[in-house]
């Protein structure tokens, strides 16, 4: 099951491990799984007023429809929510024939999140993304929030992007060299 629930402390373990590189190797992360101090936590950027949790049903397979259950919660009161579905890479995934690109649903709250299901067909293996935008009309205008849902299809690894070239400078410091435009 995939979930949007943020799990804070694995990130702390990761950062401690990453800091421990270069042979320091003496960082104790024993308390990470139990009761870490408040000062050890981390801040994250704000999420939109409509949160979308999701569950991918079954194992996504190329060419086979896959269903994603959405649980939608809003802090914006009784206004209806418009959901829009989008796939950035049309060679990677498409919607099933019966799947509308946009639906309007009733308001929801923490106690009773709205439920929706969206169905897509993966066209290739890899880590593919379905974007779900939730929009609500408010007094201050349209408020939208978007969630990118990663769908892992098959065992193909995530596509890694290149950006510049890693090298060492004259002091031995690791640098990532990016090309400049010049005139």
């Amino acid at each position, binding site marked *: 099951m995939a*979930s949007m*629930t*943020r*799990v*804070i402390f694995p*990130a702390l373990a990761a*950062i*401690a*491990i*990453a*800091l*421990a*590189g*270069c042979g320091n*190797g003496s*960082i*104790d992360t024993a*308390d990470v799984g*139990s009761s870490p*101090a*408040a*000062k*050890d*936590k*981390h*801040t*994250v*950027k*704000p*999420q939109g*007023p409509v*949160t979308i949790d999701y569950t991918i049903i079954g194992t996504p397979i190329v060419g086979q429809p896959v269903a994603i259950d959405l649980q939608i919660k809003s*802090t914006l009161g009784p206004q209806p929510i418009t959901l829009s579905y989008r796939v950035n890479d049309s060679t990677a995934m498409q919607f099933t024939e019966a799947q509308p690109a946009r639906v309007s649903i009733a308001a929801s709250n*923490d106690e009773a999140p709205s439920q929706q299901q969206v169905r897509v067909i993966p066209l290739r293996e890899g880590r593919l993304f379905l*974007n779900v935008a939730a929009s609500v009309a*408010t*007094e*201050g205008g349209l*408020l*939208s*929030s*978007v969630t*990118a849902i*990663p769908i892992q299809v098959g065992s193909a690894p*995530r*596509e*890694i*992007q290149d*950006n510049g070239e890693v090298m060492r400078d*004259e002091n031995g*410091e690791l*640098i*990532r*060299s*990016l*090309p*400049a*435009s*010049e*005139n």
Partner: protein
Amino acid sequence: MRASTSTYFVNLRHGCMALSALCMLAMAACGGSNGGGNQGGGQPTVTVSGTVSYEFVPPNGSCTALNFGATVTRPIRGATVQLINSSTSVPISSMASGANGSYSFSNVPQNAGVRLRVRAELKDGGAAGWDVDVRDNFIAGASDLDNPAPPALTSRALYVLDGSSFNTGTSDLTRDLTAATGWGGSSYTGSRSAAPFAILDTIYTGMQFVRVADPNASFPALDVFWSVNNTAASANFDITAGEISTSSYYPDFDMMFLLGDVMDDTDEFDDNVVVHEWGHYFEDNLSRSESGGGAHTLGESLDATVAFSEGWGTAIAAMALNEPIYCDVGVVGFDIETVSAGVKGWYNELSVMTLLYDLWDTNNDGTDNGSIGFGPIYNVMTGPQAVTESIATLFSFAAELRSSLNAQGVALLDSQLDRENVVSGAALDIWATNESNDAGVADVLPLHTPMVADGSVVNICVNSSLDGLNRHGNNIGEDRFLRITVPADDEYDVSVVTTTPTPPSADPNDRDQSDPDIYIIRGANPGQINEGVSAVANSESYRTPLMFANETYAAIVEEWRFEDPVASVSYPQTICFDVSLTPTP
């Protein structure tokens, strides 16, 4: 042990700074300089000058995508520019770019093969004013869990912008370097050179904004990590593999991580997001926050520390950028002046950000018909708020600010507090003693429960009714605060005992027993937090260091199961504790 982690990091940074100083000395000894005139031996020289800049892409009007058609070129300010010998790759000279991105190297030998490099770093000319690096956390094919471990984050690759080699010739010459977006019209087709410099320059903007209020403001070292492979992972984060939680700031490490995966979400041009996270860095280093952070949805009723911290982050972004529209492209966009969601109050980050912004801005709207400017806000954040006896919240900030303002400023502050349904006027104090707005949630008020450290027991309850199985642990009601009066200088035995029954679930491996934690904060020296955070079931106990009778302390009591991602799904939403501090013999 965590302290040793930080110590290691700090020492490493100091080592790097010392190394830079040595390099500068070495360069000076080798004849590197920025001054004019010929070299000592009379060798003919030229001056190489120009500007360094980056492309910045604003959002479209609806904040749903970047508007590459509106791309503008901005100067790279304050970054290290190096003139490098093409043959040896050794820097000939180095300087920080000017406010318009300008640089100038004089006394450069004629007919020499050289190239220019801009390092994604702000070193304030070697002074202690600031020290910002933008690095790449991602290493292809590597993982945080590799054995041996990957290189430490602080030694990951620093981004640099490299120009091509050229011959200096016999006349002064101008070379302008631009970091381009790499956008090819419908997708990225080239190196995304602009991104790290956009991030760097946005942070420069934040620091310059603060420097207007305090020209002597000093900013401790900050490492920012961005990668084209940084994507938001829902769990199993792996920083080396680019799997981060989202754009975030880690106060214990002075590190910021930013998203960059174009298939998911990119934040390098979302300057509000960058300054929002930098606002947390500000709180961490120049002010104070007890916020535990975590996921937060606009309009949620949050813990008081989280609401103030998140509202502050967005507000200082809007102020520093002079832009009330917060736009996290493709994720969320809103106008800080008009946005409204959830219940208004001290627990709503939207209330906090709107209040702070309206205190600052000069745009009259509704009850916002004045401005106190940033100076008083800055002075309180870096002064009284940093050493307040209470937990640092909107109340401590507003109460301290109110005492520093003239009558006009007080009237403006009170009107903004009233608008956001926060106690105002003479009834306002740092402890929120007279606050009655509890967001309709149980176990919230009083915000600070009074207690005396004489062995007497206070029973308080926490509840996770708004959070439920999200297990964020940061909603209103999930933490309770204490206001502790200490009768005598002494060490104290702290006891927190869970009084709510937590029956074991059917699964013997379930985390179904209470795990209370307590943090005691000495406002006069907020770095001195003593804490009981053991994993002992249903109780917490420890002996404090010396506490002083002439000071009032504050404490946070929490139920760790409320943020334990693997806590039993049937764990109760309300948990009560008996809390006491007893003088030691």
